[in-house]
């Protein structure tokens, strides 16, 4: 939690354009955006997203470090641990045998897909500027369900029993005046096509689809000195959701969060989990 605030503070201190968070929020959730920002669902009461496992402690056995690898540098600020190929594997796998599965390096699926789904949901519900103030933890059949309530009453659910992916609860019978949907500052096509890699002759020369991209948005905002579509503060607010859910799941209980003070009021135990000491010589 502390690291996110420091990134925002540095961006604001030097008046720099910093874009972050999910690249999917405009593309993947556009249909939901149009319905919700268009007002047809009325007041948005809740959204459920489905994320899978949280990360866990890794205790894989020691293996010989490959000659080509600086293992100490790979570990960086994380606690020392023995090399194991699966510990540092870059595979997109949060269920084990890749770094995303282990809590010294990642939150697991809750921070992996959570960054996308929570980012999309907070955009759809228009609570990007906020952080939750109440975190309710329950578990059904061993599967945690975490509800994060915002100051305006909106509730973001993670794995609500019986609810599907991106299930939106609006207010039946109510309509609200439509709001213009924010988009990228740059509508020009920028760069190679999605998925194009170096040497990808098939896609060479193709351009991104109409409507711009987060990359073009960033460049345009650097030119204009304005905040980007995915301003870093919104990314940090999204990650706050992921981390608050993680703390609740770690402690197996509900929490109260003070976004202004970035602390759990009167909860010394939970406050110990808002940051971690980094292995020297790294620090923040």
């Amino acid at each position: 939690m502390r690291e996110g605030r420091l990134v925002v503070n540095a961006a604001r201190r030097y008046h720099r354009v910093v874009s972050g968070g999910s690249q999917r929020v405009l593309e993947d959730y556009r249909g939901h955006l149009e319905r919700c920002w268009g007002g047809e669902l009325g007041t948005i009461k809740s959204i459920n997203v489905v994320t899978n496992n949280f990360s866990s402690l890794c205790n894989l056995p020691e293996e010989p470090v490959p000659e080509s690898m600086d293992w100490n540098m790979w570990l960086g600020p994380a606690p020392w641990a023995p090399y194991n190929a699966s510990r540092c594997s870059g595979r997109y796998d949060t269920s084990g045998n890749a770094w995303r599965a282990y809590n010294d390096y990642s939150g697991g699926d809750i921070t992996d897909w959570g960054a996308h789904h929570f980012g999309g949901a907070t955009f759809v519900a228009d609570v990007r500027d906020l952080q939750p103030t109440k975190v309710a933890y329950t578990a059904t059949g061993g599967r945690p369900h975490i509800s994060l309530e915002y100051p305006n009453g909106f509730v973001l659910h993670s794995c609500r029993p019986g609810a599907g992916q991106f299930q939106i609860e609006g207010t039946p019978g109510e309509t609200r005046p439509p709001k213009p949907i924010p988009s990228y500052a740059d509508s020009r096509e920028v760069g190679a096509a999605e998925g194009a890699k170096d040497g990808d002759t098939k896609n060479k020369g193709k351009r991104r689809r109409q409507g711009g991209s987060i990359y073009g948005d960033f460049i345009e905002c650097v030119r204009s000195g304005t905040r980007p579509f995915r301003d870093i503060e919104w990314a940090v607010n999204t990650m706050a959701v992921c981390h608050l859910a993680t703390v609740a799941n770690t402690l197996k209980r509900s929490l109260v969060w003070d976004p202004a003070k970035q602390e759990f009021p009167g909860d010394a135990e939970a406050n110990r989990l808002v940051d971690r000491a980094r292995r020297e010589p790294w620090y923040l």
Partner: protein
Amino acid sequence: MLDQAFDALKTYTWGQDRNLVKPLEDAAIATRGDAAARKELEARLAAVLTTDATYDAKQLVCRLLVLVGTAASVPALAGLLADKKLSHMARYALERFAEPEAGQALRDALAKVGGELRIGMASSLGVRGEAASVAPLGALLGDGDVALATAAAHALGAMALPEASAALTAAKPSDEMKATVADATLACAEKLLAAGNKAAALKAYESLLAASPSEPIREAAARGRQACGGA
């Protein structure tokens, strides 16, 4: 079951079945609200740190003490701060303790350890933000070890204390350290402003502006001064 887990912990190594020690992890959570049980658990965990248990076991204990540790664990953790392999894990717990004994242990270690371990102590003291740490950190701003001096500057910058701001603005940094100290001064001023201490924040911003800073620092300080209600 807990006794078996403590037995397994003595020889615990990476690669073993984690279920052997999982009852310890479960107990760290389950003992919340049961002061006697948690106190006993803490004492048994801290005792492992003073034995010849494996590194792997001691690392796990430090992780668990983040949750259940109190001032009672500080001596055992403090005993690891000079240990090159375990110093970080001792800080991993101590940095998060609200108890002032943890800060004192880190300050004591700052005066004794060498090399990169001092950087660790300085950074943890900055995160803790205790007034008693300002003087020892301030004394490091002119250290010949630039990495250590840089860590000390950032540590002071992390504190929402007028004393920390005063230490930074009073420093006479080398050319190599000027930008670092200025950045830390800005960070400290932001914390003071957020805490409602406009006067101390304004003093820091004006001190920076008076020192002919580089353009990014000058602009940041000018914005800060404006946020304080200054010109």
